[in-house]
């Protein structure tokens, strides 16, 4: 049986110890930027039983019907980004809604067969909870809106 020499064991043990340290560090003081050693925090936050569950969506309009906002899938295949990625950048979007124009551009490249978007708005929909159960009520808040230059106001 091929046994490992002392040196071969040594560097492997050091490597294992290093992994252990960075994984533990990631969990105790790290954040997502530490990937692949970031904390395993999926669904780790608490949701109060009497608060609300927020979900972000986008609505768009096209030149064919500029007066009507319609919901569009917030998916990589549609705009190059997914919902969580857009949710994570809400501060950027609120500060500079023109970045939404890049989503319209990505949509144009990914879905050239569809009508181009001339406007996008980001809506946060909050589903209200009472005692951990849905009340059936929801509230919408539009947090940012972008209109293509040249498309004019609705």
């Amino acid at each position, binding site marked *: 049986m091929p046994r490992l020499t002392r040196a071969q*064991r040594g560097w492997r043990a050091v490597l294992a110890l290093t*992994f252990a340290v960075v994984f533990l560090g990631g969990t105790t003081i790290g954040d997502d930027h530490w990937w*692949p050693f970031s*904390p395993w*925090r999926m669904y780790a936050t608490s949701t109060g039983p009497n608060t609300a569950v927020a979900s972000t969506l986008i609505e768009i309009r096209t030149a064919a019907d500029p007066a009507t906002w319609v919901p569009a899938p917030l998916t990589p295949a549609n705009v190059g980004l997914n919902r969580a990625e857009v949710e994570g950048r809400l501060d950027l979007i609120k500060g500079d809604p023109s970045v939404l124009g890049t989503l319209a551009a990505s949509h144009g490249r990914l879905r050239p067969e569809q009508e181009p978007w001339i406007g996008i708005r980001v809506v946060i929909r909050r589903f209200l909870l009472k005692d*951990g159960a849905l009340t059936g009520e929801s509230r919408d808040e539009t947090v940012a809106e972008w209109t293509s230059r040249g498309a004019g106001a609705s």
Partner: protein
Amino acid sequence: MDEPGGGRVMTSWLFPAVPLGRIAVFRTVTYLFVVLDVLWLHTSGWYHGYADPVWYQPLIVGEVLHLPAATVVLVNVLKWGTVAAALVAAALVAAVGRLPRLTGALVAAGWIWYQYVAFAYGKVDHDRGDFVIALLLLPTVGSAWWGDRRRSEAAGFVLRCVQVVAIATYFLSAWAKVRFGGWDWVNSATMVRAVVRRGTPWMRWLLDVPWLLHATQWGLFIAEMTSPVIFFVPERIRRWIVYGWFAFHAMTYASISIAFWPHLVMMLAFLPLEEYAASLRGSWGAWRTRGSRREGGRGSRPPTDRSRPQAG
């Protein structure tokens, strides 16, 4: 070896001698999974090639290595390069055990970079840490092929590390719940949130039974906190614990359509894969030769004497 008692126990625990046939099967499954993952399961990285660089948020590893924002060319090179390397790696390993280090290193570099592209746009998934470690460590084992009965400490080390990180995925995620959600996480409405946001149509009835979701939270937290127990139980129980986790993940997938696919593959590191492979090959051989063989059976049994996994 001449280490003192405690060190010796730790050393033999970290370097169990396992059959090389097991690492060969593990390699094949892992590299074939890479192909599946890149082509079908985790494709958001490819779409990031179409996203504007304004959305790129470099992670630490990207800052250190000066990785650029994704482009359409980059994501296609990574995608197809990784798939090609993984197919070659899987085929060569399964057939003759050739070039495991070179092909394994290429797969590791390609897949990890591709994941980086997926995660550097503001959202990191938390089910891939163990798979990263497996891809990095697999090339440290040399030649191995299916049915290889030689035992190797290098192979045992890789499987042990993967086992530890796979279990850390549970244990440290319980820790993260305490850190980010507080001890009150177990009494919060987190599962309700999960079902509202991602619930499958046939599981939305759960929203009408909040106490069940509440109890599930307790059960999950306790299971995660106690997960390291798997290293201290006898072999037979260990297998059942692994099957239990598989069942948990199947239920999670059915209810909120989240599956930790790479992690599920890594949980295979606990199982005597070479026995399953031999048994599969045996049944296949028996099926093919049935009718033409009168007194078969012996050759179709898996070797059970020498293939027992090491005790934890």
